[in-house]
């Protein structure tokens, strides 16, 4: 449970001349759910985008299963078993739900395994099966989020990175999404890195938690202490 599958070492990243992530070192261990908290503008999203290869880090390293993948293109990372669910519209709005899911398995060389995975995902989110032929953009926010997660699972990733899956969702839907994340973690053994602002609903599903503030890690460790609001307020 303690070997790092994905690791950031002194990662720095930003846009143009602006550095937003200032030397973050964090590792995601095999099989765990790691929660990263932080308020708006703390640099969480920039951190995971640099991790996933959507932007080139300014400094530092990214290691995946022990080998360095810093600055590698997303296509290669996806093929290697890392999946990313971006914030907001992580779907193709003009395509059907079914097409979205199928595109999730784009890098899979053997397409014959896809129907079976589709079944698994439909098992996880039955609503997606019901809405298979509906245009994704017309789904409700929660359904869109489930679809986005479903897409990411289509190539059976070993690491799943989720950027604020709860954003814009009603509380009951957030719970639903969180419980499915736990389910993914347990059923498929996927290691999960999740970024969140919704502390009460995301903390319970985390094995470990970290808080990022102004581009730096200010807390890393067990999630439980963060349940104390006073402590949390200090960190935020």
């Amino acid at each position, binding site marked *: 449970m303690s070997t790092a599958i994905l690791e950031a070492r002194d990662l720095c990243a930003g846009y143009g001349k602006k550095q937003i992530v200032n030397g973050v070192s964090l590792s995601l261990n095999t099989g765990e759910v790691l929660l990263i908290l932080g308020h708006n503008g703390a640099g969480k999203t920039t951190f995971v985008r640099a991790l*996933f290869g*959507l932007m080139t880090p300014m400094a530092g390293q990214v290691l995946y299963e022990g080998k360095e993948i810093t600055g590698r*293109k*997303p*296509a290669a*990372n*996806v*093929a290697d078993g890392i999946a*990313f669910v*971006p914030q907001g*519209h*992580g*779907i*193709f*709005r*003009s*395509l059907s739900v079914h*097409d979205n899911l*199928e*595109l*999730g398995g*784009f*890098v899979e060389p053997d*397409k014959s395994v896809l129907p079976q995975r589709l079944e698994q995902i439909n098992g996880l989110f039955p609503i997606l099966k019901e809405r298979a032929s509906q245009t994704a*953009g017309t789904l409700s926010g929660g359904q869109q989020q489930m679809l986005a997660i479903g*897409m*990411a699972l289509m*190539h059976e990733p070993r690491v799943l990175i989720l950027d604020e899956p709860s954003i814009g969702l009603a509380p009951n839907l957030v719970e639903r999404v969180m419980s499915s994340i736990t389910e993914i973690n347990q059923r498929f053994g996927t290691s999960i890195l999740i970024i969140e602002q919704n502390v009460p609903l995301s903390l319970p599903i985390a094995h470990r938690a970290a808080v990022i503030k102004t581009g730096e890690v200010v807390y890393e460790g067990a999630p439980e202490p963060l349940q104390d609001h006073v402590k949390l307020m200090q960190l935020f």
Partner: protein
Amino acid sequence: MDLALQLLVNGVITGSHYALLGVGFGIIFATTRIVHFAYGPIFTVAAYMAWYSAAMLGLPIPVALLIAILAAVLLGVGSYVLLYEPFEKRQAPHLVPLIASLGLYIVLENLVGIIFGSGVRVVREFTNGIHFMGPVFFTTIHIWQVVVLVVLGGALAVFLRWTSYGKAVLAMTDNPEMARIIGIDTRKVAILVFAIGSAISAPSAVLILLKDGATTHMGFLAVFMAFVAVIVGGIGSIKGAVIGGFALGMVESLGMLRIPTEWQSSIAFMLLFLVVLLRPQGLFGAAMRR
């Protein structure tokens, strides 16, 4: 009444031609956001290659068509790899590739003039049949123009709908960043759409060659009408480009029932003007991407 019927049929035929051009231009535009003006002279090159193969080398017209397609694809892909991609990599301001595209337009059009000479090029071996349906007349080429749209449009729809690279094209049109996130190599897709879009222009060009002959200047109308069809139909929608093309063809034909024909070329732009003002996303387009 007969006139209206005839103009309706003309509208369908012309509309098919514009629609096909719109689809070819539109798939490039929607996927890569490049305003590929050089689509025009590439269309011209395709017609001239077909003419050279058929009239000068005496090859059968289907072979000439294949050669035309090959030439169009080579030029289309070449213009992406050698011209547009370097600008994309340097993140040049978005008007710069547009001006570069115009530069390429000038280069290609005049090269055609230099290599093939001026004047009209006709394939004499081809005879155009005439058909009557009640009071309505049309020719074999007219039928082909509609057939080619149906076949190629259909084939493209099947490709986009049922193949994984087809869906990758749709994905990139919808959301390029998300396409990268799920592991699509967006460069490959861009090359692919340049190949497809250029290939689609070639049969159109060959039909115009057989119908009216080829001139070095023929690409201008092709790219212009394609552009208008795409905007009217809505950027990012293949279906929109088809509808846009038909709308254009219909307005150009049926609109002339009452309006004097001296306004024929303005009417397309009146339509464009109104569509953009009243429904900026085009008749069928989703809201334009930021």
